[in-house]
């Protein structure tokens, strides 16, 4: 099936739905958002990822209108949002705490926003029923929020924020309270809804797997700044900094100094050890400090030295983390550097080759590692 790649951020003609222009938000002395400029496009599923307190909720609250930027401007479809109060924005927010109205039934909660628009009764009823069907809540329509489960409540909150068909939907840790199974089901449900309604989503999450699953682009934040905003694959495979590489997934970071060698660079990481080799598009000066970022699943583990690989190091297994389908081996090199290697557990436990204290060879290809500045 031929599919058009959805990458409006690479299309210079595409008009962004949201534009942050030099937005800074201070609370007193404290800078929560630090001079941010970026765009979010229509139909995107934009995920904000970052450690606690990095400013994700603040970003959302500025979009919803509950906080005003201290400096800079936020545009929605080219229109400055600053003078528009929250109740006049075509933006809806699904609150982290759901914020369902406890005195209203599920049906009335979903109808709340529609009624404020003064729509005719039958239009409201039809829309609410549609939302109930979408979130599979039909049989709970008459219940009050305290009479349904946490997952159902979350879906009510979602339905309520979707009901007005906003241009932009903000989801602040929408799946935080759900168990793994339900969370996954809801993630797919969210993507499905997004596909059907064409709404633009901005989602905040602590869970990087969630961000990777649902998002068209992931923005990794730290201390009020977006460090990198890119597709999940590029964030994972081509992080632009040690911070992003370290934040997303498991990684081994090896500091060293680079020296040009053929197509790539030789990286000296410890005295008396053969330098490692990596190919990269970034250019380094000779002797510049750099970091090798190495994903554990790209590191092979073997008893004998593999002949065909330039990057091969010997070490001792210190720890094995058994993850069911995978095992992560923590291997210490003679200089003390730890490297993580991951293998799929295709065989049963008793037949597996390596155990604690074994001396093994680790190897990876020339393009497996990412070479980072700084």
């Amino acid at each position, binding site marked *: 099936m031929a599919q058009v790649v959805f990458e409006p951020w690479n299309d210079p003609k595409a008009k962004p739905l949201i534009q942050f222009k030099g937005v800074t938000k201070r609370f007193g002395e404290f800078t929560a958002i630090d001079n941010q400029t970026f765009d979010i496009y229509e139909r995107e599923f934009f995920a904000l990822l970052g450690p606690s307190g990095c400013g994700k909720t603040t970003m959302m609250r500025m979009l*919803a*209108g509950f906080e005003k930027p201290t400096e800079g401007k936020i545009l929605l479809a080219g229109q400055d949002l600053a003078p528009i*109060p929250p*109740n006049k924005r075509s933006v*809806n927010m699904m609150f982290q705490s759901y*914020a369902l*109205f406890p005195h209203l039934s599920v049906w009335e909660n979903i109808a709340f926003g529609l009624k*404020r628009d003064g729509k005719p009764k039958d239009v409201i009823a039809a829309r609410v029923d549609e939302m109930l069907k979408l979130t599979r809540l039909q049989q709970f329509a008459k219940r009050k929020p305290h009479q349904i489960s946490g997952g159902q409540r979350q879906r009510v909150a979602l339905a309520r924020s979707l009901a007005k068909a906003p241009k932009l939907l903000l989801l602040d840790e929408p799946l935080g309270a759900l168990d793994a199974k339900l969370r996954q089901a809801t993630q797919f449900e969210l993507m499905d809804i997004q596909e059907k309604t064409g709404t633009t989503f901005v989602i905040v999450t602590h869970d990087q797997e969630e961000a990777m699953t649902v998002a068209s682009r992931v923005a990794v934040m730290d201390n009020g700044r977006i460090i990198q905003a890119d597709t999940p694959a590029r964030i994972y495979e081509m992080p632009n900094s040690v911070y992003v590489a370290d934040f997303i997934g498991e990684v081994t970071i090896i500091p060293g100094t680079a020296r040009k060698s053929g197509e790539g660079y030789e990286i000296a990481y410890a005295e008396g050890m053969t330098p490692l080799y990596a190919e990269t598009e970034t250019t380094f000066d000779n002797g510049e400090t750099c970091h090798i970022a190495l994903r554990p699943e790209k590191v092979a583990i073997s008893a004998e030295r593999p002949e065909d690989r330039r990057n091969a190091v010997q070490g001792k297994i210190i720890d094995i983390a058994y993850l069911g389908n995978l095992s992560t081996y923590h291997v210490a090199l003679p200089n003390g550097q730890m490297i993580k290697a991951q293998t799929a557990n295709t065989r049963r436990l008793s037949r597996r080759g390596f155990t604690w204290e074994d001396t093994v060879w680790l190897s990876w290809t020339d393009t497996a590692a990412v070479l980072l500045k700084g």
Partner: protein
Amino acid sequence: MRRFALIFLPYAWLLALFLVPFLIVLKISLSDIATAIPPYTPTLDFSQGWQGIRAFFSALDFENFAFLRTDDLYWKSYVSSLQIAALSTLLTLLVGYPIAYGMANAPDHWRPTLMMLVILPFWTSFLIRVYSWMGILSTEGYLNQVLLKIGVISEPLIILNTPTAVYIGIVYTYLPFMILPIYSALERMDGSLLEAAEDLGCSRIKAFWLITVPLSKSGIIAGCFLVFIPVIGEFVIPSLLGGSQTLMIGKVLWEEFFNNRDWPVASAVAVVLLLILIIPIVLFQRNEQKQREAEE
């Protein structure tokens, strides 16, 4: 066994402090007035044995209740008490709600102080506080002096010994009973609900009516009953501030007991008052019950 103890204790409490006194009052209301100590007959005399008890019961009758119907002072007092209680409850709500709202929205570090200020009047005697209102409201009182001084009025207002003074006294006295339950309902409210309402298209005022008011409903109902129920039987405020114009059943009750020394009629008045009060008390309990269920 534990279950039994748990149920038994409150019932024993109820029996000792409510039912027994009530039965005593009921018995007096069925007796006849007498110049004796206590001022009614019959009294139960166990020394006469079975005969005495039979004589005792045969002497009881409903004469006093019948008497309440012959003089329209009584039913007028009941009706007037209910009217005054209803209106002053409404006034207390109108004054109390904004105060509770202000308290609930005040910065956190202010709240204990504000709470203190609401409770503070309880630390002085109720009687003294009502007396001081006499000093404020009388024709030569502080209020008139100030108003005359700043030229708002040219003749002193006559407030004391009018229903207005009674309403002022009641609203002042019972305000904390209105404020506290409403405050506790408002304080429990999650602030993000209002943000959610705004997000969905409500103006602030609309959000107040659609979210804040319904969510403080149980506090409003509790506060109203806490004011309404005792105000019906209120006697100090109407006698000190209301003069002879204000008709309230509490005052009638007092006069029957202490001026006429007619304990049986006074008791009959009290029994009827209690029967009237049972309705709002039951409704109040219902509200509390519903509230508790909603919180589970």
